[in-house]
């Protein structure tokens, strides 16, 4: 009996009543009072059996639904519930229970699923849930809120880390760019310093040469001064000699004149001697004549007169000879006088010339002295200049070597920045795995700073770039985003529109700069880079505006 359900037991009881009723009817006869009672009992039993069968069907449905539900199939329901009896009510309650249970289970399931996907705003909809279902739903929603809060915090933290990483990347790249520019500047400075050092060395050599020559000139000038001084002294000595000669000549002229005067006196004396001789001759003649008259007596006297006459003649001849000689002598003396006069004049002229020359020599001497002094000054200055030039040259060489050291130091620093940058890039790649617009924008910032950086490195000679295959404004990360569906939310923003043209310039000018650099058109490459740089600043500003708008 234990294995029979209560419904089966009831049906069994109804069957027994039916059998009992029928038995009574058979025993008492169908029309006897007992028989009628027996039939009534049997009918009642029959009705009960029909009712029991209906109940049994309902119960079976309930049992099926409950058994399914017990197995975790919450979709099951009891259909076609008729009537308003307590069994129907029970079945409706069963459906309501399943409705509540399934609603709760589905809500909880979907809310959790949404939570797992980060959509924590998708709560369990508590409305419509009752009693403990509603309570549990509220509890789950609280948990979702906490998780959502944590997730938001995590997302915020993540975002900050991403932003910091982007900033680090941007800063590192800016640093690297600054380094590249400094390196480039220092390289130029070093090259120029080296050029200057060479030029200064040449200058020093030239100055030394000039100094040497100047010393020689000073030496020569000094010698010239000595010689000029000597010359002047000789001149002065010559002047003295000239003066002595003049005096002597003048003295001689005076003596010649005195001699001439003495000769004149002799001529006068000779004239009187000639007159005496002529008278003596005349007297002798007279005496002869007288002697002749005196005859013999006179003969001795005549001889003496003759002798006297001869003497007078001899005297006249001698006087004449002396006169002639004196005359000759005077002519000679006049010649000497004239010569002496000429000599004196010549001497005077010579002396005058000597005096002029002396004056000039003195002037020259003065000039030579001044020149010598100046040459000495120049020489001293040049010596100082040589020292100064040497110092400059040393200084410049020091600068050049220091610049080389600086380049090395900056290269080291650039290397360090490169490695930091690589690590940050790696971090950024990891963090930017999800493609939310904000992250795309932040990464686009990094991309564009990197692009600038590569160009600067190229221009500074630290790297090489090829234009072919490099991203343009449509294929870079930002370009793909801008032309993709994800940008739809931003297309009507001013910053988005403002970004288009500078972004195009960033790529086109950049690519042109690479080509110019390849073809060694360095100045053009620099200009294109400057253009790119300016546009890049605008793009970064627009990105910042978009990120600020997206946050």
């Amino acid at each position, binding site marked *: 009996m234990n294995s029979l359900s209560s419904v089966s037991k009831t049906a069994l009881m109804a069957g027994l009543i039916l059998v009992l009723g029928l038995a009574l009817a058979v025993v008492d006869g169908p029309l006897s009072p007992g028989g009628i009672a027996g039939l009534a009992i049997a009918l009642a039993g029959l009705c009960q059996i029909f009712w029991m069968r209906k109940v049994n069907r309902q119960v079976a449905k309930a049992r099926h639904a409950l058994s399914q539900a017990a197995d975790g199939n919450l*979709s099951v329901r009891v259909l076609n519930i008729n009537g308003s009896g307590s069994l129907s009510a029970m079945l409706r309650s069963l459906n309501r229970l399943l409705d509540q249970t399934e609603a709760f289970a589905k809500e909880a399931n979907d809310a959790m699923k949404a939570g797992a996907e980060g*959509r924590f705003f*998708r709560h369990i909809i508590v409305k419509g849930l009752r009693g403990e279902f509603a309570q549990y739903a509220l509890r789950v929603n609280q948990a979702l809120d906490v998780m959502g809060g944590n997730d938001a915090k995590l997302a915020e933290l993540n975002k900050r880390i991403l932003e910091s990483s982007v900033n680090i990347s941007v800063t590192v790249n800016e640093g690297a760019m600054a380094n590249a520019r400094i390196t480039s500047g220092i390289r130029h400075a070093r090259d120029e310093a080296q050029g200057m050092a060479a030029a200064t060395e040449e200058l020093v050599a030239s100055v030394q040469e000039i100094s040497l020559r100047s010393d020689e000139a000073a030496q020569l000038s000094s010698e010239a001064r000595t010689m000029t001084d000597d010359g002047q002294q000789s001149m002065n000595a010559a002047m003295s000699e000239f003066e002595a000669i003049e005096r002597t000549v003048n003295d001689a002229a005076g003596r010649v004149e005195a001699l001439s005067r003495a000769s004149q006196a002799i001529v006068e004396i000779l004239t009187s001697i000639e007159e005496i001789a002529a008278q003596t001759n005349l007297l002798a003649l007279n005496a002869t004549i007288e002697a002749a008259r005196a005859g013999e007596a006179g003969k001795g006297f005549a001889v003496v007169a003759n002798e006297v006459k001869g003497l007078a003649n001899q005297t006249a001849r001698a006087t004449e000879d002396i006169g002639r000689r004196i005359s000759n002598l005077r002519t000679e003396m006049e010649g000497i006088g004239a010569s002496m006069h000429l000599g004196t004049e010549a001497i005077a002229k010579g002396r005058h010339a000597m005096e002029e020359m002396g004056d000039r020599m003195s002037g020259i001497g003065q000039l030579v002295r001044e020149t010598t002094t100046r040459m000495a000054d120049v020489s001293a200055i040049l010596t100082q200049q040589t020292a100064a030039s040497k110092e400059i040259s040393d200084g410049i060489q020091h600068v050049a070597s220091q610049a080389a050291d600086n380049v090395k130091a900056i290269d080291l620093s650039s290397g360090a920045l490169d490695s930091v940058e690589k690590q940050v890039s790696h971090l950024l790649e990891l963090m930017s795995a999800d493609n939310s617009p904000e992250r795309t924008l932040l990464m686009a910032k990094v991309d564009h700073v990197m692009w600038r950086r590569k160009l600067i490195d190229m221009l500074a000679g630290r790297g090489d770039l090829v234009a072919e295959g490099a991203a343009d404004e449509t294929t870079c990360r930002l370009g793909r985003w801008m032309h993709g569906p994800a940008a739809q939310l931003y297309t009507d923003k001013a910053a988005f529109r403002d970004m288009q043209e500078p972004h195009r310039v960033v790529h086109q000018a950049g690519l042109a700069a690479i080509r110019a650099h390849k073809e060694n058109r360095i100045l053009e490459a620099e200009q294109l880079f400057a253009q790119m740089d300016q546009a890049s600043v605008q793009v970064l500003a627009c990105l910042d505006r978009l990120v600020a708008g997206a946050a």
Partner: protein
Amino acid sequence: MVERPLTGVERNFRDDELIVSKTDLQGRITYCNDVFMRVAGYQENELLGAPHSIVRHPGMPRCVFKLLWDTLEAGKEIFAYVLNRAKSGDHYWVFAHVTPDMNASGQVTGYHSNRRTVERHVIPLVQGLYAQLLAEEAKHSDRKAGMAAATNMLLETLSAKGVSYEQFILGL
């Protein structure tokens, strides 16, 4: 069955009640709870086997149902504010949550919908949006083209707000 004309009368149910129904994959009703029957004014035997569109109201844009079925076919849950018509021609607003029913092996066997009451302040917002979508649908003689245009309009409206459909609906 001849539809009765709309009465303009709104029907209500309690905040702690759920209108529950289930359909097979073709959208034919396989279960409706007592709240459904009471509010819609149908007997269980009238509903079982009937298409769920039996309660469709002409004030509902078709594109909303298209979105609903597209989402369900993708195996995802969907929320929607739905205006339904009762048998009598009355109407009632529900906040519907529709999910696929799956068997133990993860196969979709049908769809399940829980409907809740709608906050009063939401109704004018939804009505405004639905009126625009209906107007867009009405512009096109081709029903499909109209529906596509209205769907686009809905997506663009959401895109302008910068929210997903789900965020928008749950945020009302």
